[in-house]
């Protein structure tokens, strides 16, 4: 919190305009926002059901599933990238088949960016949605069942709205993590302006040659993402616990 002030005070604002004028910066920013948003959407689609299984179902192997989901949390991102290669790379388990059948390779494409970000960021969504589901009152689900709602309808129309604040928090974390993703992306997707160079990569590279410019760049990233979050806030955060 305080450190940010330091950053703001010391930032070389004079570099702001020249940096922004670079076409690459705009491209990287756009790519970052698009891919982080896509990764969040994919995570929501895949992760919310997983969270539900973890919190509500009684199938065997739930703890194995939870462990698997938690893995990318603690895997160094670069290693995560390597792991992605081993499965989806040209020589990877699935990737080889894709390559030989459709002559399609995932690495070094924008798709790869989204996959890498999803891989790294989805656990954040799953874990926080699971927490929210566990804290939620399951009796409303009973009520829905007596009204004829099957588990899926109950989930969609009752459980999910009830834990909306938790899902929103999870989505924010997921989005932020995806937006900041660096290691797995550069490993699995590479770094090519326009297709795979996201802001964090641009900032990292800028840091090598022009540290002050890099700071300005990251402040731009910061400003854009904060603005996005603030804009969404009212719509997302939902029910406040403040008694009315």
């Amino acid at each position, binding site marked *: 919190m305080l450190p940010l002030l330091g950053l703001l005070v010391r930032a070389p604002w004079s570099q702001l305009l020249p940096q922004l004028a670079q076409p690459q910066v705009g491209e990287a920013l756009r790519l970052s926002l698009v891919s982080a948003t896509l990764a969040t959407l994919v995570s929501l689609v895949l992760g919310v059901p997983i969270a539900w299984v973890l919190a509500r179902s009684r199938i065997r192997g739930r703890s194995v599933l939870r462990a698997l989901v938690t893995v990318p949390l603690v895997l160094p991102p670069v290693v995560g990238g390597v792991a992605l290669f081993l499965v989806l790379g040209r020589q990877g388990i699935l990737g080889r088949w894709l390559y030989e059948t459709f002559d399609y390779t995932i690495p070094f494409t924008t798709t790869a960016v989204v996959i890498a970000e999803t891989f790294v960021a989805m656990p954040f969504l799953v874990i926080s949605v699971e927490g929210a589901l566990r804290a939620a009152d399951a009796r409303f689900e009973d009520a829905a069942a007596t009204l004829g709602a099957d588990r899926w309808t109950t989930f969609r129309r009752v459980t999910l709205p009830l834990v909306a604040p938790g899902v929103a928090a999870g989505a924010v974390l997921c989005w932020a993590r995806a937006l900041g993703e660096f290691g797995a992306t550069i490993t699995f997707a590479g770094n090519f*302006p326009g297709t795979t160079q996201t802001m964090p990569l641009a900032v990292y*590279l800028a840091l090598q040659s022009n540290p002050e410019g890099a700071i300005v760049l990251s402040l731009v990233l910061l400003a854009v993402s904060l603005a996005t979050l603030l804009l969404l806030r009212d719509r997302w955060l939902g029910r406040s616990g403040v008694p009315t």
Partner: protein
Amino acid sequence: GGSTSSGAASSSSSAASSSGGGALTGTLTVFAAASLTDVFTDLGDQLMADNPDLDITFNFAGSSALATQITQGAPADVFASANQTQMTVVTDAGLAEGDPTVFTENVLEIAVPQGNPAGVTGLSDFADPDLTLAICAPDVPCGAAAEQVFEAAGITAQPDTLEEDVRAALTKVELGEVDAALVYASDVQAAGDQVEGIEFPEAEDAVNEYPICTLTGSQNPEAAQAFVDLVESDTGQQALADAGFRSPSS
């Protein structure tokens, strides 16, 4: 196997240690580029063996992170950078004791996966859009060097990715995900069996120099100087040569 840098003129390698036996005491903190990890760790062990009262700590990281840390007052005695740019950051801040000296050099090589499945033969293959190719981003030293050699060779490269550092490029070669990458000879050496190196003549147009210096804030200038001397000695140069580096040509 890794290639040997036959183009490198390794100077005479007599094993005379330049450090005075057992005279140094205290602690010595060396900030060095991550690519020097193995060589410097070995040299440090030697110096500590010769000087039982000396304790050496290394801080290996990217050169730019190291430069930032030094300008922020990090307790460093020696700084070995992987490029001149980051050394300049330190000298400009007035933190270098005297002028930095270039203690080793590195040249580019073409790294291909084991067995060279795509049949890459030379720098001209980098213009082939059908190959999956990695070079370093122009912001980092190996990328800057790559730009120079392509310019010298008059080639318009068609890379699929501009890597943040050599390591990232090499990983992709190791996994067979790219057909070729342009990296430093020392990295090919470090990568072991999975990667083969191909030398090419244009590499001489972009020699990367590693400068080293002792720092003004040093608490132990003698030991610092001793370490620099050891690196520049024949022992040091031999160790660097074994790791795929070459002695400075000038």
